[in-house]
């Protein structure tokens, strides 16, 4: 009855969240007095998981799963749960994971609690703390089903090293044509750029930028910081930036280490969506902008003056600290 963790990878490499969920799984296993088994799909560096407390890896190498397919992935993970007799499954909060995990939960009658922000409060009853009301509140949720699934919020638990040696075992799920009844036909994805979901730093801008033609400096700032770019809802509604960049209550949630908001006044919906970010910086001409109340650091000033200076000084800083 080990704790099973789904460690996500992309093009053979583990995502950053894989090590965070592995660390979380280790904490749960310690509470339950058991060990951690990982299920990885077409990952190449399975032995890396040992560093985070994983003692066994079920390694799936299957060309049919080279492209993400929610139903087939869900079936694979379901079979791994059965094989390991696992009673707890730990997963991330990535878009793909949030797509496939309800399918696992539905099949196994498992209670699934996403957006969990801390190690379980206790295992009998099994109680977890999660964000709810789009980050405007927290709920303490009891899971009563036999199989329990916990979705860990991005960056909420952190990566914790816990040196173990991971024994890698090949695992071949039995999949049929029916598992592939939804087919990916085209993927349009930015490569080589941080995404809002994975980035340590997110640079976000709002209507204060006055028009889409002024986003050059936002992108340059993001590039200097290795950050993802994001925007406020009005900016995406106006079509200045793609929907995928809209962060906030009805857009994407942000849980980065550093969130820099430029020319965003801070509507309650926006603040809710970004409140999980650890450090928030606001740059705005209006000292009364509500975002200042929710920020850690602020500059009252014109983005068109401050941002070029910031880019220049950050380049110097990066050169010195490289």
């Amino acid at each position: 009855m080990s704790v099973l963790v789904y460690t996500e990878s992309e093009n053979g490499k583990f995502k950053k969240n894989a090590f965070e969920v592995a660390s979380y799984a280790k904490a749960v296993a310690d509470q339950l007095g058991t060990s951690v088994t990982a299920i990885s799909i077409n990952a190449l560096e399975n032995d890396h998981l040992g560093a985070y407390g994983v003692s066994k890896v079920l390694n799936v190498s299957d060309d049919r799963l080279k492209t993400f397919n929610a139903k087939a992935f869900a079936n694979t993970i379901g079979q791994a749960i059965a094989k390991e007799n696992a009673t707890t499954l730990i997963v991330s909060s990535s878009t793909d994971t949030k797509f496939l995990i309800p399918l696992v939960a539905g099949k196994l009658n498992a209670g699934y609690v996403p957006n969990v922000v801390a190690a379980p409060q206790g295992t009998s009853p099994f109680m977890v703390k999660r964000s709810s009301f789009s980050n405007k509140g927290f709920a303490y949720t009891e899971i009563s089903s036999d199989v329990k699934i916990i979705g860990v919020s991005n960056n909420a638990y952190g990566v914790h090293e816990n040196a173990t040696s991971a024994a890698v075992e090949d695992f071949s799920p039995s999949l049929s044509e029916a598992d592939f009844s939804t087919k990916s036909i085209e993927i349009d994805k930015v490569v080589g750029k941080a995404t809002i979901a994975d980035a340590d730093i997110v640079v976000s801008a709002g209507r204060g930028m006055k028009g889409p033609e002024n986003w050059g400096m936002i992108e340059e700032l993001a590039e200097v910081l290795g950050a993802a770019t994001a925007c406020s809802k009005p900016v995406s509604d106006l079509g200045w930036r793609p929907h995928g960049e809209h962060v906030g209550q009805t857009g994407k949630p942000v849980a980065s280490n550093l969130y820099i908001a430029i020319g965003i006044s801070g509507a309650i919906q926006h603040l809710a969506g970004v409140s999980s970010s650890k450090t928030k910086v606001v740059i705005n001409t209006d000292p009364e902008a509500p975002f200042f109340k929710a920020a850690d650091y602020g500059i009252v000033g014109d983005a068109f003056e401050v941002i070029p200076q910031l880019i220049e000084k950050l380049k110097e800083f990066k050169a010195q600290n490289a």
Partner: protein
Amino acid sequence: MKILVCISNVPDTTSKINFTDGDTKFDSNGVQFVINPNDEFGLTRAMWFKEKQGATVHVANVGLATTEPTIRKALAIGADEAIRINAEPTDGFFVAQQLAEVVKNGGYDLVIAGRESIDYNGGMVPGILATLLDMNFVNTCVSLEVDGTNATAMREIDGGKEKIATSLPLIIGGQKGLVEESDLRIPNMRGIMMARKKALNVVEPVDASKATQDTKFEKPEAKGAVKLVDNVDDLINLLHNEAKAI
């Protein structure tokens, strides 16, 4: 094509969130309730299917009688008929089982739900529903076209979009992009009058198990005061040495 749009009754996005009864319940006092935004994008897309492809559109909600104004709003926007399952939606698994019964009895080809409700953020109802009914499923769906029984959908992925080919019967977890914000419809007087005459059928819940239970709520801790600086050197210094963020 017969479409069921599943709607959640949620606090308006501008609501301040408070809890009551010893922090065990959401305090609905003074709160304006609306159709969950992710569901409203789906409902508006369903209206497009109704107008362009002759689809029939029903809406379903799991909720007590207090959700009826929100359901009437969906009818005023243009849904043909509504079903309210008379139960409190406290657990995603429970809600999915209730909706599964409605879908089975109604013979729907397409079920449109939101990616998540903005109150409890479970994000699991459409997916669980898909497994209970063995229907195809696309989550974080940002566009949907149906041609006969073939469906082409776009879904949002981390860092981009993916085009997916699948077929009916299909369930989607929708969000903004299915239609634009500017496509959303405010019910007009005629719509509101007509909605009064449309069927709002109340059905009792089926026996269903719950897998989770929220036992207590709390609000985030109040934030300390912002540190204002007047030059970028100070900002970089604080981010490096104090916040250790760069």
